[in-house]
């Protein structure tokens, strides 16, 4: 109804719109985005001229004023109208300007546009856009685990507890969760650290996972997805000025959440390169090199590890983890272990080892001293429930005083979403043998994980048949990150467009095939090498088509530019 009203009224605002507003920008330099010189016209007064325009920042219409005959505000004597905004590109927090998040970057925005164009009937060389850019299993058709959803439905609407079609174990699980919620409702705030019983279950899960290494529920913090935990920890440890500014070591390639958070916090990003030739393995000598160089200009405080790797899909060996722990102890670095893909291990001979477990098996010299935060989430593994924003972190050997500070920092978030906490609880405490839902649960989980393993292999195989694409085995996680050869002429053309060559490549692929990938430059890569990240999540038959399309595209692209 309101939309019609706006349309009816819009002609009235047109004169207002066209009169524009001159901003003189008395303050600030005026960057190039302002068109350099002189006045800038703003069209914020009114509803958009063209309704399909999607330019952000449009603003209020004054139409209701004129319609209502309210007195117009007199312009103040000192000519307020000629002033710029309070919040401009020059006055805004400069660190936010550096925040980039490739996984949701320009290529994804273009993919959304293409989807809209397709739905509007525009002709494209493809029938649908396939978003292989993001690790979102359900978006690719993976089915949720029935038991999890049953319990959550019961928690949402407890009247269903009298419904005989729900299995008893789902009901008892739901009751248990509701009993630990304020007012027996998932709609109540929880403690900001998370529901106590959930934290206890998480602690028991970790103990089981780590072969009995003890875990204290007080060290568990439930979070809004793992990323919330990671960003919170970084916020806590970034401090210092100038050459004493905190530095944080991250792998290259990395998951862009890290670079974005570090940019926002204006922390120093210290890159260490994974060895692509050795299946993206981590060399201690490379860590040492990166650290020694960084110490000349910042104060390295933390070392981030993603295992299994994102975007690179490697699974760290036990020896390698031990080496990293020894390194962190020697160099007194806070360890941050991103272990959200801990159930996604596919390759023969590979096994997930948690940093916590290895740390404790190395004896008290390490287990009592090395500070570690480990992150997990409901978004990946076999459940893939990204939309719930559930996750936890476990914090080990942290100073009590610092813990108190962490609690304060978390309180600003009030609490993590309660359904996400409930789901986390189910993930760490799934149906047990003998319970009615057990068999079906195991079947669903196995089906999903073995399909992923098959797709990991398939992806590696097909991509490696393409000349100019070289792909390491996808040992774990959900992505392949192949190295691609881009012809010199294409690189030249990209440069002329001011684009990274792999962005140019991925954009072309999107326009021609509808496949949305993320260019390697969004994750970081050795200079002169180019990659893309592709998820292995589409259903097998679709993945086959997708891989063949990638292959065909690469061949024609190479031909076109050589």
């Amino acid at each position: 109804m309101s939309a019609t009203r706006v349309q009816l009224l819009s002609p009235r605002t047109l004169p207002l719109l066209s009169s524009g507003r001159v901003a003189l920008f008395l303050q600030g330099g005026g960057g190039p985005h302002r068109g350099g010189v002189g006045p800038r016209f703003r069209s914020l007064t009114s509803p958009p001229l063209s309704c399909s325009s999607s330019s952000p920042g449009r603003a209020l219409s004054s139409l209701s004023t004129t319609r209502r005959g309210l007195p117009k505000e007199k312009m103040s004597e000192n000519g307020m109208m000629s002033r710029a905004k309070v919040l401009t590109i020059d006055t805004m927090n400069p660190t936010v300007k550096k925040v980039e998040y490739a996984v949701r970057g320009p290529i994804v925005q273009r993919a959304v546009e293409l989807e809209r164009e397709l739905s509007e009937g525009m002709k494209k060389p493809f029938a649908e856009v396939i978003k292989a850019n993001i690790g979102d299993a359900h978006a690719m058709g993976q089915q949720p685990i029935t038991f999890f959803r049953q319990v959550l439905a019961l928690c949402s609407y407890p009247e269903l507890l009298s419904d005989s079609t729900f299995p008893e174990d789902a009901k008892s699980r739901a009751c248990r969760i509701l009993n630990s919620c304020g007012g027996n409702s998932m709609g109540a705030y929880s403690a900001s650290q998370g529901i106590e019983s959930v934290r206890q279950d998480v602690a028991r899960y970790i103990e089981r996972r780590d072969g009995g290494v003890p875990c204290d529920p007080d060290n568990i913090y439930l979070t809004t997805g793992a990323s919330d935990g990671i960003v919170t920890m970084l916020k806590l440890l970034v401090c210092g000025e100038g050459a004493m500014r905190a530095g944080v070591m991250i792998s290259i390639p990395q998951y862009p959440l890290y670079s974005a958070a570090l940019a926002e916090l204006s922390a120093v990003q210290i890159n260490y390169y994974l060895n692509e030739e050795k299946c993206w393995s981590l060399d201690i000598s490379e860590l040492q090199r990166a650290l020694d160089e960084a110490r000349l200009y910042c104060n390295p405080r933390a070392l981030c590890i993603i295992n299994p790797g994102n975007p690179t899909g490697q699974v760290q060996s036990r020896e390698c983890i031990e080496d990293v722990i020894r390194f962190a102890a020697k160099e007194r670095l806070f360890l941050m272990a991103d272990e959200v893909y801990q159930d996604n291990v596919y390759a023969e001979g590979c096994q997930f080892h948690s940093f916590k477990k290895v740390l404790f098996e190395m004896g008290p010299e390490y287990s009592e001293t090395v500070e570690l935060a480990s992150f997990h989430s409901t978004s990946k593994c076999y459940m893939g429930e990204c939309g719930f924003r559930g996750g936890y972190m476990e914090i080990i050997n942290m100073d009590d005083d610092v813990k108190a500070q962490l609690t304060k920092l978390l309180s600003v978030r009030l609490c993590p979403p309660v359904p996400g906490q409930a789901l986390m609880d189910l993930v760490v405490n799934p149906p047990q043998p003998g319970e009615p839902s057990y068999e079906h649960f195991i079947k669903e989980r196995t089906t999903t994980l073995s399909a992923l393993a098959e797709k990991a292999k398939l992806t590696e195989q097909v991509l490696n048949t393409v000349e100019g694409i070289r792909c390491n085995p996808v040992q774990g996680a959900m992505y392949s990150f192949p190295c691609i050869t881009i012809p010199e002429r294409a690189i030249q053309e990209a440069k002329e467009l001011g684009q990274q060559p792999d962005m140019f490549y991925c954009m072309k692929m999107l326009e021609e095939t509808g496949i949305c990938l993320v260019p390697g430059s969004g994750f970081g890569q050795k200079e002169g090498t180019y990659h893309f990240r592709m998820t292995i999540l589409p259903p097998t038959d679709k993945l086959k088509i997708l891989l063949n399309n990638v292959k065909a595209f690469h061949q024609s692209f190479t031909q076109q530019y050589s």
Partner: protein
Amino acid sequence: MLKMAYSVRANIPLRCKWAGTTRCFLTSERLPTALQRTNFQRSSCSDCIGLRLVSNKGRKITDMSVLQEISSNVRNMKQLENSVLARRTTQIKEELRQGVRKSYKEVIDVSWGDPHKAGVKPLSFVRQVLAACLYPQLMDGDKLMVDVRQRAQRLLRACTGGSVGSYSATAGIPEIVQRVSEFIMRRDGGVPSHPENIYICPGSQWALTNILTVLVNPEASPRIGVLTPVPCHSTTVLSLTALGAVVVPYYLREESGWALEVEELQRALDSAKGVCNPLALYVINPGNPAGYVQSRKSVQEVIRFAAEKRLFLLADEVYQECVYREKTEFVSYKRALAEMGLPLSDRVELASFHTASKSLMGECGLRGGYVELVNLDPAVMKHVNSLFSTNACAPVLGQIALDVMMNPPQPGDPSYHLYMKETQHIRTSVAENVKRVDEVINSLPGFSCQLVEGGAFAFPRLFLPPKATKRAEEAGMQPDTFYCLRLLEEAGVLLSPGTDYGQKEGTYHIR
């Protein structure tokens, strides 16, 4: 600085691989006292001429936390008095469970704005839609009303892959964002609202923190100031501190029903001179913890003030549906701004916040809120978008709660009758409670309470006898915390002390 201590001797700059620094000038006198008591031993690092610390037992002191030094902004965040009370509450609850005799059977917690915790039942329609979205098999057959099924089906179609378990777009599920914008237009009498200016977030406070992150350059000199009401709920003040902003307090006038007066804003702004650079004005309407509702005129005055003083307006309007007095009306800042016309209406920058946590929904645990941004520079909007995108997306169930909140069942829908019954029940009991609070609290000696016009809280003033103040002082507590603790011990009622919200010096309140 601490980490240097491990390797250093008096004033010799070191290059130590073991301690990892090239810039050490630390003497043992400057070591933290905890370390001064320990022995020193030669460093094992080959190129290091420094000292390695070992404890008396000969074990390496690496159990000193790497994180001894943390962000000063985080350290500066105030420790809430409420945490003392919360700890004690947990203990008392445990004591009650173990059968310790008290003059009460349970602790009544009225310190939080959490309807469900306080016993308000969730709305059936909301929860049925959620259940159906979570477990679509429920839609087979006719267990659920047809409008519930339709709503759930529509929402699932809007989710990628037809699952609430997939990520949504950064700003939220486009269809829901669209619905939020339609709600705002209806609310504001047709003032246009553009979906691309709306971001759904895990709660309104999250959205506020993001907008503040864009506004507050922590390195700025002078620092960035934000005008903030006193009293003000504690979360925002904590956020501001954590981001390195200066909180510039302006006092609401209690005697006039916690009125927001422009003269006071001016005074606050003047007080910031030489201290910080005030860039934004934060208003809470309806108030929290003080239950005032701003009149249209008052909103207009504030807007004019913000325009003149070039302040970015942050309007916390999460209690917009909680307005209780007959003659009081909620007027959104957006609407007032639009109605004031040019030049203000296309110039004053505004961020307005709302949530599914309050009012009839009360779904705090789902974490669904949004911000609408008005008149922002498009160049800035681009970065706002990048910042929000790093959060991935708001929890999808929270987004669904917002959808239902914006579009409750309509007359004629099968669920309408029950929905009306439930909401009417909530309305009536809240109205009764508001009345009772006015009557009872004001009838008590030592209390005076301004009319609660809106919001979820009463914030009565407490007149404490000097003896009580003295006892509190002896106990090392704020007088109102002391009062709350006694109330908790003796009556099992948990309130939160005015200290956490800020109050005029020498006055005491409770929320």
